[in-house]
């Protein structure tokens, strides 16, 4: 009885218990809440497709193929020598979003152009992948929605789009296998 009275009147011991318990409770609450929030983050099936491997062996020179990456179209074009020449020769002052051809490809693999096929204006998918598609004034890609023209390096040259077609992170696993993402 006497011990209890002592303890009750001693503020430090009482407060220590309350503070400790509250702290432990807060840690528990945070640990319990985190899964409820994290479950909205991309799940394992989505993350599994965050990185894809594209096999380039079947793509002939002058041919374009569309892959799917993170739900978006990826334009991969096996450029001809002429297309590469033309792309390299364009002076930077002529471009709306200046970027050299070298900045948009990987050294040693310049014939491969890998881009996200979404117009940087308002998100339509530009034409130019198929041989009979309109290619626009610069022989690259043309977006029919509002008339953006992209050149043979996927750079915006005419029209309302502000930026060049986005180049995703990618690397070559071999000469014919590229890992995107």
């Amino acid at each position: 009885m006497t011990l209890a009275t002592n303890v009750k009147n001693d503020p430090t011991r009482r407060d220590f218990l309350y503070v400790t318990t509250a702290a432990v409770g807060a840690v528990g609450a945070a640990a319990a809440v985190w899964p409820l929030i994290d479950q909205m983050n991309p799940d394992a099936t989505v993350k599994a497709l965050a990185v894809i491997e594209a096999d380039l062996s079947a793509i002939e020179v002058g041919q374009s193929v569309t892959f799917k990456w993170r739900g978006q179209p990826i334009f991969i074009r096996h450029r001809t020598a002429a297309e590469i020449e033309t792309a390299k020769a364009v002076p930077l002052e002529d471009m709306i979003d200046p970027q050299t051809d070298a900045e948009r490809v990987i050294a040693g693999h310049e014939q491969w152009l890998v881009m996200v096929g979404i117009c940087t204006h308002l998100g339509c998918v530009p034409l130019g992948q198929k041989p009979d598609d309109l290619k626009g004034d610069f022989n690259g890609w043309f977006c029919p929605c509002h008339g953006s023209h992209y050149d043979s390096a996927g750079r915006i040259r005419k029209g309302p789009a502000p930026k060049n077609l986005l180049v995703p992170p990618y690397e070559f696993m071999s000469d014919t296998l590229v890992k995107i993402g």
Partner: protein
Amino acid sequence: MSSHSNYNPTNPVEKWFDERLPLIRFSKEHLMDFPTPKNINYWWTMGAVLAIVLVVQIVTGIILAMHYVPNIEMAFDSVEHIRRNVNYGRIIQGTHAVGASMFFFAVYIHMFRGLYYGSYKAPREILWILGVIIFLLMMATSFLGYTLPWGQMSYWGATVITNVFSAIPLVGTPILEFLRGGFVVDNPTLNRFFSLHYLLPFIIAAVVALHIWALHVPGNGNPTGVEVKSNADTIPFHPYYTMKDLFVIVVFFIPFAWFVFFAPDILGHADNYIRANPFVTPAHIVPEWYLLPFYAMLRAVDFDVLFINAKLGGVIVMFGSILILMVLPWLDKSKTRSGNYRPMFKPFFWLFVLNFLMLMYLGAQVAEGIYVILSKVGTAYYFGYFLIVLPILARIETPKPLPNSISESILDKHEAKAAKKIQIGGEGNE
């Protein structure tokens, strides 16, 4: 609703808010200052536990609904997708499934507390009836929820229980097809069951609010059954009962966590991991454990009575077993509330508890032989307890003398304890 609040806001922002929407005043009055009997024991903590479990179920349920697909082609796979691919999905799904069982475990303790201590008696009749309504809604919600994984038990349980409605004469079959949205349980059924399963818990929450309101008019009961007479009988809800309830909630989470993390499937049925197949009926169709007593009573009626066939009879008995709870305050007219002071009542009450557990066991057995006989006996005692035993006891029982007040009963208890200590030869306390 008497005002017990001593809330006096000094902060001008608080005052401004209090004059327009007295939320803080209301919370203080009902969740903090509310005078609660000093002597309520641990049987009284289940109410808070139930409120927390309801919140857990709603939160985990809403999250599951972000990933679940209520279509018969995808339902089973979407649940497995949650378990395998969604971040922490295994744990969230496990919590929701086990949570339903924990919900019923707590509610049965809560209800048996009410039956023992006479919590249903005047002036708490509406409180009790609201509780029975919550129980009914819980049963409906859990039944609907169990269908959603679309396993064999989901499908066949839904088939059996919806078939119950076809027992109603004349309008039975049209009602059955109306409920199912077809001739058999199929995609329309699953889709609407999902919608209703999402809806019902919010109705439960609303009825819970009414339940607490109805409680706060007379205030809590207590183990003596003697009403609060003065401030000496009560203490404020906070911090005494907030902290006591929080302690019990943490303890309650321990078996909850045990099941979720180490035995998540043990309360369920292996057959529900087999995709629903309308052409193959499982050997034993069993509902979840918490519905078993009522399932036993449903099957106990296997004979016709006059123009009521066995199927209809079973349905009447099953629904009757819950509806009879609603009229309990008028069946048990004994002036003494608490079983502690009713020596004749006690053995019948404990027999009722055992009987309920026996019916639970029987609900999972095959409907043959001794099990059928015992189910009939059990059903008879269940109804007999309410319709015969309690009314008769009210008339013939001589209760033990009640204490004059709660505080007096507390003093008596402590004096008795002290006397016992001296008797045993312990050291003096002072």
